């Protein structure tokens, strides 16, 4: 049996890393799917945070409240995050300046944690007025960008995304498709762009990291054999 082990290490048993996928389209698709699920997951969790703002004690069927928002919201968020996460590295590539700042997974995790924290703050912290809330959130979002991105393209894209998403949300609200739990209209509107901005930065960060890990490895695939050893 030991002999068998000796003789069969030829094909590298690698995990289902994206890096092992060399085909470009498949790679893209996998990244998109990963981003989509990350977006869905974050949407569900953050939605729950927002719900908790108004409901402090849950009825016994709490789990149902996770899906209490409209069914199409998480898929929309997932799709949006997939688009954003693919768009960021794409724009980087087109601009010819690959993002080099803090390109590592720990930084990405930190970014996600800060993003969730911003949401948490917006949901849990009681602010005196809405201006304070939105100013705080804006500062936090800018801080997020500065800490983890620091690229002009990232900033521009984030602002664009925030603007677009806010407009879309407002349209939805105007048309009655979607409602906020809180009737405070201005209140909701004030923090939405910041959250969208931070979310865009975060998803872009994740997308860039994914793209990097998938782009770097094919180049060094010649050395995969040695790295495995």
């Amino acid at each position, binding site marked *: 049996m*030991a*002999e068998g*082990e*000796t*003789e069969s*290490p*030829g094909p590298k048993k690698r995990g289902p890393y994206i890096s092992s996928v060399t085909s470009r389209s498949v790679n893209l698709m996998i990244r998109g799917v990963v981003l989509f699920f990350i977006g869905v*997951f974050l949407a569900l*969790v*953050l939605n*729950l*945070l927002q*719900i*908790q703002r108004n409901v*402090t*004690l*849950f*009825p*016994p*069927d*709490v*789990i149902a*409240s*996770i899906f209490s928002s409209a069914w199409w919201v998480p898929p929309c968020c997932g799709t949006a995050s997939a688009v954003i996460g693919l768009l960021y590295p794409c724009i980087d590539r087109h601009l010819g300046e690959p993002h080099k700042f803090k390109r*590592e*997974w*720990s930084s*990405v*995790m*930190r970014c*996600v*944690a*800060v993003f*969730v*924290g911003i949401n*948490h*703050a917006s949901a*849990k*912290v*009681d*602010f*005196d007025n809405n201006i*304070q809330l939105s*100013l*705080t959130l804006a*500062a936090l979002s800018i*801080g997020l960008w500065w800490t983890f991105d620091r690229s002009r393209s990232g900033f521009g894209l984030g602002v664009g995304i925030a603007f677009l998403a806010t407009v879309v949300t407002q349209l939805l609200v105007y048309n009655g498709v979607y409602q906020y739990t809180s009737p405070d209209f201005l209140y909701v509107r004030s923090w939405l762009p910041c959250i969208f901005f931070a979310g865009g930065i975060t998803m872009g960060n994740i997308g860039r990291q994914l793209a990097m890990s998938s782009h770097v490895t094919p180049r*060094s695939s*010649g*050395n*995969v*054999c*040695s*790295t*495995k*050893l």
Partner: protein
Amino acid sequence: MTLTERLREKISQAFYNHGLFCASYPIPIILFTGLCILACCYPLLKLPLPGTGPVEFTTPVKDYSPPPLTSDHKPGEPNEQPEWYVGAPVAYIQQIFVKSSVSPWHKNLLAVDVFRSPLSRAFQLVEEIRNHVLKDSSGTRSLEDVCLQVTDLLPGLRKLRNLLPEHGCLLLSPGNFWQNDRERFHADPDIIRTIHQHEPKTLQTSATLKDLLFGVPGKYSGVSLYTRKRLVSYTITLVFQHYHAKFLGSLRARLMLLHPSPNCSLRAESLVHVHFKEEIGIAELIPLVTTYIILFAYIYFSTRKIDMVKSKWGLALAAVVTVLSSLLMSVGLCTLFGLTPTLNGGEIFPYLVVVIGLENVLVLTKSVVSTPVDLEVKLRIAQGLSSESWSIMKNMATELGIVLIGYFTLVPAIQEFCLFAVVGLVSDFFLQMLFFTTVLSIDIRRMELADLNKRLPPEACLPPAKPVGRPTRFERQPTVRPSMPHTITLQPSSFRNLRLPKRLRVIYFLARTRLAQRLIMAGTVVWIGILVYTDPAGLRTYLAAQVTEQSPLGEGALAPLPVPSGVLPASHPDPAFSIFPPDASKLPENQTLPGEPPEPGGLAEGVHDSPAPEVTWGPEDEELWRKLSFRHWPTLFSYYNITLAKRYVSLLPVIPVTLRLNPREALEGRHPQDGRSAWPPPRPGQGGLWEAGPKGPGTAQAHRDLTLYKVAALGLASGIVLVLLLLCLYRVLCPRNYGQPGAGPGRRRRGELPCDDYGYAPPETEIVPLVLRGHLMDIECLASDGMLLVSCCLAGHVCVWDAQTGDCLTRIPHPGRQRRDSGVGSGLETQETWERLSDGGKGGPEEPGDSPPLRHRPRGPPPPALFGDQPDLTCLIDTNFAARPQLPEPVQPEPRYRAGRRAQDSAGYDFSRLVQRVYQEGGMAPVHTPALRPPSPGPTFPLAPEDEAGFPPEKSCPSLAWAPSADGSIWSLELQGSLIVVGRSSGRLEVWDAIEGTLRCSSEEVSSGITALVFLDKRIVAARLNGSLDFFSLETHTALSPLQFRGAPGRGSSPASPACSSSDRVACHLTHTVPCAHQKPITALKAAAGRLVTGSQDHTLRVFRLEDSCCLFTLQGHSGAITTVYIDQAPTPTPADHGAGQRRPRRGHLPVGRADRQPGQPHVRSPWGCHLPHLHHLVRHQQWPGRPHQHLGPQHGHQALLHPAGPGLWREPGCHLRQPAGDRRPGLCFLLGPELRGPVTDSLPGQEQRGPAGPPDPGAGQRCHCLQLWQRAQPGVRALCAGEAGLRVGLPHPSGWGARLATHGTWTGGVLSLGKAASDCPVLPHDCNIKSVFLNDISQGPFEPLVSSLGRALPSLTPSWCLKCSTGLDLAQLRAAPARSHMKSGQLQSWGGGQPGASSRHSLHKQVGVASQEQQRADTGHRTGLFIR
């Protein structure tokens, strides 16, 4: 700009000093830090434990009024009111506690009668309460006015709709089970089933419906068929919205009046306010869990980057500890200064960690690790700190700024967070600077110890038990080596554990700490405890009762176990087991109203078969609600969508109501079906069944089953764990190749001598290097045939040495470079060929070696004391240790002699320069003949006095002969017999006489430089820079028979051979020329067995036939220039190595699969499947010594690849033998070489995943440049590698190497000097970089062959280094003393073949050090003298 720079410099300096400080006093600093942490965490003790349990606050009933909406207490004054006691409570809860019993008991009564009629009275009571109206001056006030009006139940609770009140007062009583309808109750055939039909099937802590309606814990209700006490108690719970004292008072008075309670001691004085904390539901936990998951991912990804340290996980743990303790410190400090945290700690904690971050820690580690490893630990720490100081401070300032900005948002929550973050940041910085840095220094120091143990002098080889206890000693260790370059370091066994494989270390750790034993013991104790605890007659019942007494949470979840009657006597007065204390009756008050209570004696209806239950009221009844589930009230209110989170309810004192029913009433209330039931009346005294769970025997059975299941599950789980543990232990203890001959080093105990499965223990070898000095420049070429060693330095001097004794026989200076031989100009022409002779098969036979002993012996008397017991090895082994620089002082004449001789040599050189011109006119003077015998005894020699005076005879003669040599540096050198073939950069080929130092002939064709030479059987092949090959044949007129000299009896006895006299005519003819053998310069040239293999920079190899220079093959497949070629020189073709003449060219870049296209060659792949850049040395050993090996077969080859860029020898565990299927012979086998310390991640592509490749090697961090394998007289292949660390000899025998190789294809350890035990892998320390190793296999006997090595200075070393090294040619001689010296248990018993006993070790080393230093001084002194001259 300047300010920034200055600030930066200051910060850097401060950090540098701080790093020095930390690394100097690690233990005190860590202790201090720990004390700081503890001190800062001390205020945390005052904080309540986190939890969601309710908090109580008691106020007196008298003059109670709801607290104002705003807290009015001043901050300064102590207030007893909790902060939450603000505003009106959600509700006031009034419980009316009914105790009712049928009295006297009649034996005709059924068990149902115990509770049926008492329960029926609840309807009446509820009626009374509902109809109670207070009439006073302010008008009438009914219950409806003050009670809490509830609306609909929550939509999810439809099934409870009929049971809980809706749209009205919240009033709960057991009557709700029957919708407050007395008729329903009377029509109910089975009360207990009705009550229990809503009981949840599973265990839960939340309040059940029965608890809600009864208002008392289930076991106190007494509604059971098996109660011992025929006492039913329940409450009627009223919930008021407003506190109306008068109404409540009147209600209480009325109820007390209607149903008086005798001997009631309830004082009803206090109002209890219960505050409920925030609920944490699943939904709330989801974001929390998400943040924690993200946090852990962050920590994981961060700590994964810690690398190149001794213990990665230890450092990661230290990092996490740093962060956590900084958080704790911040909380503690904030508490100390009066900032009580109001935020939920668990929620903000992840964000705090993220804000604080692990970056600094990682950056610090990286920076420290990346400092040069040669430095002291202290300096490394300091440098690492100071290099990162600026960024650390900048980050710190940025974070503080951000946090301060956040502080000015004026949002209280954010302010609080920011405050915490600031304190946390500061304390984190504090901890990083003190704690983590110190831990890092300890870690680095441990790594230094592990890595450098080979290089340490023995007196420094203390076990690293207290690595920090004596910092000064260990700090010096990295620098120890330069000061003692000639120290042979043998390794005591105490260091071996540092080099063990990881799993062995785990095992040793387990063994040392007896961890498994303790775990098993602890497990046993826990197991016994569980058994005792869960024993029905055991502790648990007792404990449960105790807990029930004290716990405010009640017994709702914990079902007590049935207690056999024998265990606890029924008359036991223990209050734990009786609801009513026996002294209750002594209470003074007796409120019995005349006429009201039924007289117990008045009714003589039956015989009292048991004492009538006494309805008593004790203090424990006062707050029976405490025994309810703490979720009782929140559950109740949550049914109506009222949250109690962060709010409180006020519980009014209970109103006791005693109902006494006579048997007649009980009989009247009986349901027709009750009589048919077969239940016997309870027999309280002897029934023995005390059923708290009202479900009858089934429930009891269920409980018992549950316990059984628990025990069984626990047993199963622990059994599985045990089995797994054993499995793991087995896997760890027994190697995977269990049952195979090579058990690997894992089996070896510490201190045990290495011994393979065949009972072969390698002989202990002693190695004393012999240093040959005399070259003035870097040595460029080296050739040897075993007896002679020819070297050539950059200055153009060719020296011929006796390889056995180290005497310089001949010296051939370079003509054109006399003026600059001490300069560096010639060094520019360094040509990168170094010749290597493996197994000098055509060993040079001629024997000038007779002379060295002659010269040697008379001068160096045998060392008196130290080596006196070395018996008779003098013929084969140079026992004249005094001739070596390491020699201790006691060997008096030797150092002086050494120095003197070297002085002679060098002086001779100068002298030769002077006299050379004189002889040049004379041409070839015959004078050289005597001069060729420098070793000849002085007296016979005419120049003897000058010899003593530093006039070296050998110099004069060669200089004569030397004149016609053309300009051009020597690029290649070959030696055979007594002839030296020299290829020069000018293209000249010269043949010199090695002994006489005369030029025999030279080729005049000057084309381009000769890059490589092969001298084989009178045939010389020269490879030129332009890619052409020239084949020469050498003709001598007198027979040049090697055998003649082989037969020489001994070095000492034979006279100097006159055979090579100048009278012999040597001619060199060009036979063939291959003008364009390669497109580019030929870099490698090897010949064997009639074939010639050339390797060139044009990426190809060619195989030529030696006879007619016919190109046989062109080997393609490399993607880069060929750097080295190796040909097997096996005398007989092995079955596996047939084909085109047992030749297997290897090349620097191992191609994948395409390299060996020769017929019959196996398919050899590189283990990496890709190219190894800059491979520059290859060796292969052909035969495994007839050893039955399971997988490898009797014969297989070993190969080693050397790599100059990274670690010298590849020690990659993955470079296993991946032989093609069906091929029994391993294709490649890589020797493990000394590796750069830590995992090698730099300089090589794709090395990141190499992982921990085994134990740290002593001497790691040194590159290994060359390697030789040989096998001689002993089973097993020896390996020799050389590099920066010196020369190492190892014995890769099957138990280490081969077996692993064969079975796993991985390396973990044992190779070369890095082998399994220290004793068989000595290190010959060199003080310079070894470029090449020669192995002469011609010595007879069971001794190890001679090894010589070519040293060369590293350009990066310090100048003094260079000076020293560049003048020396180090010849290391490996000798074996048969079984005389042992290494046992780390004790050096015999060293250098000398005195046994460890006592001599220290002195020996010291002396060696002194000697070498002296010698160094003498050396330099001499050199200065030389320059002056």
